């Protein structure tokens, strides 16, 4: 039988098909492990060490460009902007005075009722580095990580409302899943009548859905939905979405309700990470019903 393999002085390691088999089965293994179990965090972090500096580095030219273009702004525009900002500050300052008075009053009333304020809040400022190139999900990468005390599960908002939630944290960057992502759910409350619901991302376009609401649910176009705060994760009262379209069809058990996010989800460069902490723990879960014991044999 004739030996068809190349002579030993042309040896180049393993044959290409074998290499293909090895590398693709390794990739498949990693995918299954990552998809079904969460064992790979250390490995992910090891690779993140290589790519994190690059992620930060890419922000530098962008910042430089904004600085340079900011330097060459017309003076007239600056003066106009300045006047606008002054006016806005005056307005907000007046509202803030009222807010402080109201807050004091609220604390006083709460102490009278012996109801503790459930949340203490700290915010961290973060900048969006880029949006992940994955068309299947809606995620952004921000420039703060576990070294800056960011934790998975924290809420990310801008000055108008909720943007998303921190889902994965690396040392100096973290991933935020936007509320428009397919799997992202936010518990909300209707401002008009206090109706509670859960808002899900649509995933296809930039809208949100309110599924599982009965056809006669009291929701109208233009209703403001804010976080209800009952999950202990999102602080209450943050604007989430505005109802934009309602289809009530008696043939289906649920109404088809879609809304538009309040926050500028696709337009921001800067966001706030809300470090919400519960000052009182969640109430304990009701005890599990005792499993029915098999009748003991009588002694």
């Amino acid at each position, binding site marked *: 039988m004739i030996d068809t393999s190349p002579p030993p002085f042309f040896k180049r390691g393993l044959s290409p098909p074998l290499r293909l088999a090895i590398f*693709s089965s390794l990739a498949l293994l*990693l995918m299954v492990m990552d998809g079904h179990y969460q064992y790979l965090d250390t490995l992910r972090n090891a*690779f993140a060490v290589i790519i994190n500096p690059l*992620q930060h580095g890419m922000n530098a030219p962008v910042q430089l460009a904004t600085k340079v273009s900011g330097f060459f702004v017309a003076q007239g525009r600056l003066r106009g902007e300045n006047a606008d900002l002054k006016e806005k500050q005056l307005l907000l300052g007046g509202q803030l005075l009222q807010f402080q008075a109201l807050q004091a009053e609220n604390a006083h009333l709460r102490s009278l009722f012996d109801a503790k304020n459930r949340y203490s809040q700290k915010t961290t400022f973060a900048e969006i*580095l*880029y*949006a992940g190139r994955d*068309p299947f999900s809606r995620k952004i990468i921000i420039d703060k990580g576990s070294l800056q005390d960011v934790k998975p599960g924290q809420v990310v908002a801008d000055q108008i409302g909720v943007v998303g939630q921190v889902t*994965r944290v690396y040392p100096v960057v973290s991933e935020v899943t936007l509320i428009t992502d397919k799997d992202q759910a936010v518990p909300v409350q209707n401002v008009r009548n206090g109706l509670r619901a859960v808002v899900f991302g649509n995933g296809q376009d930039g809208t949100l859905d309110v599924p599982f609401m009965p056809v006669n649910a009291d929701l109208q176009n233009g209703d403001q939905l804010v976080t209800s705060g009952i999950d202990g994760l999102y602080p209450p009262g943050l604007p989430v979405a505005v109802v934009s379209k309602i289809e009530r069809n008696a043939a289906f058990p649920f109404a088809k309700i879609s809304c538009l996010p309040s926050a500028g989800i696709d337009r921001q460069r800067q966001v706030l990470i809300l470090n919400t902490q519960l000052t009182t723990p969640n109430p304990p879960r009701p005890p599990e019903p005792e499993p029915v014991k098999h009748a003991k044999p009588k002694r």
Partner: protein
Amino acid sequence: MPNLSAKSVLSKPASGRFIVFSLLLGLAANLLPWSELTKLLWPDFIALLLVYWVTYQPRHVGLGTAWFLGLLMDIADGVLFGQHALAYTLMVYMTQILHRRIQTLSPWQQSLYVFGLLLISLVIMLVIRLAFGAPFPGALFFASSVIGAVLWPSFSLIMRLRQHRKPTLDDTYSNITK
């Protein structure tokens, strides 16, 4: 204008340092877009670079590099760990089979092959994500492969500029004395 097609001149081999530098640059370019539309249209520069280097430097860049870069892209995009790795590995294997044929073609003919190769990597990623329960993201998902193929001629021209500087007398001399 100098004729820069691969047939005309024996090109100098690219240095390993240049390959690594170009791949780092490609990673950085993949991290640029930040809006929903640009991220769909943005070509995958790492895939383009892999096709380029496997075609012209098949001894230096192969399946291992593709796999490793794929894992880095998985971290960068925050997707399933191993998704890009598998797609790049299979794409590079196809390129390895075709690389002698691609070398002899004109840039625009090459870009047809590049379109096919990029499409293969996208289809693999699509199949993986559908298998893990994601909805189909729409036909615009394939747009980045078209844009990558259209960019290919100018891309490969830029990449080749560096390898085609004229050999100086010193180069020739040092080659003889070696």
